[in-house]
């Protein structure tokens, strides 16, 4: 009985810490992407207003940079999804409980 309570406490501790980390990952991804896209969009509009004939070409370059900007935050969110839905950090405890 005592062992199962201790086990539940350990799992709860890991899950609580995981929730904090997942939150931080989402915040970092959101802030990074928001700032990146805001700067990208504002600079594009600024450049298009200054030289309208370059707008199309700048859009192509913006597409490439946005791909990079998005990719890093998507990878962060993907790891956050892994921690949320199939937390690998619980594995050793579950193994210990089983064995």
């Amino acid at each position: 009985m005592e062992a199962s309570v201790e086990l539940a406490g350990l799992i709860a501790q890991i899950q609580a810490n995981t929730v904090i980390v997942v939150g931080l990952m989402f915040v970092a991804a959101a802030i990074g992407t928001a700032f990146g896209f805001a700067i990208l969009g504002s600079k594009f509009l600024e450049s298009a207003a200054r030289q309208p004939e370059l707008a199309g070409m700048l859009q192509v370059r913006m597409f490439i940079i946005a791909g990079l900007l998005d990719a890093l935050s998507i990878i962060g969110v993907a790891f956050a999804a892994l921690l949320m839905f199939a937390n690998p950090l619980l594995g050793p405890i579950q193994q210990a409980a089983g064995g």
Partner: protein
Amino acid sequence: MIEQEFAKTVAWLLRIQAILAALSGLGFAMIGGMGWALAALIGGAIGVFLTVLTALRVGLALGRDPKVMVRAFYRAMALKFVLAVIMFVIVAQWFAGYFLPVVTGYAATAVAYWLAMRKMANLPLSTSETE
């Protein structure tokens, strides 16, 4: 003209992404077998699919008013992000054992953007491209 330039860049990007996804699949086939290789290829396919979708949406607004272009661009990026999150949640929930190769396959396709940026940095920024 700019539509052609965009289509050429996207075609190059997709080609490089497919090659990098195939390479990561090959790498994981040697490390962990066919299951891991398939997972890496699925990660690469997610990256390629998202690029195609975004390129189509951005490409349709090309050459229009900058305001329309920026609006289409942000909408395309939001859609890309939402679809990526949905796909990775599906992968994390049902294929958790193969998560590392999936993310590596996806990250490999992101490298293509770096290469494209490097390629674009060498091109001259002249108005003749837009004519």
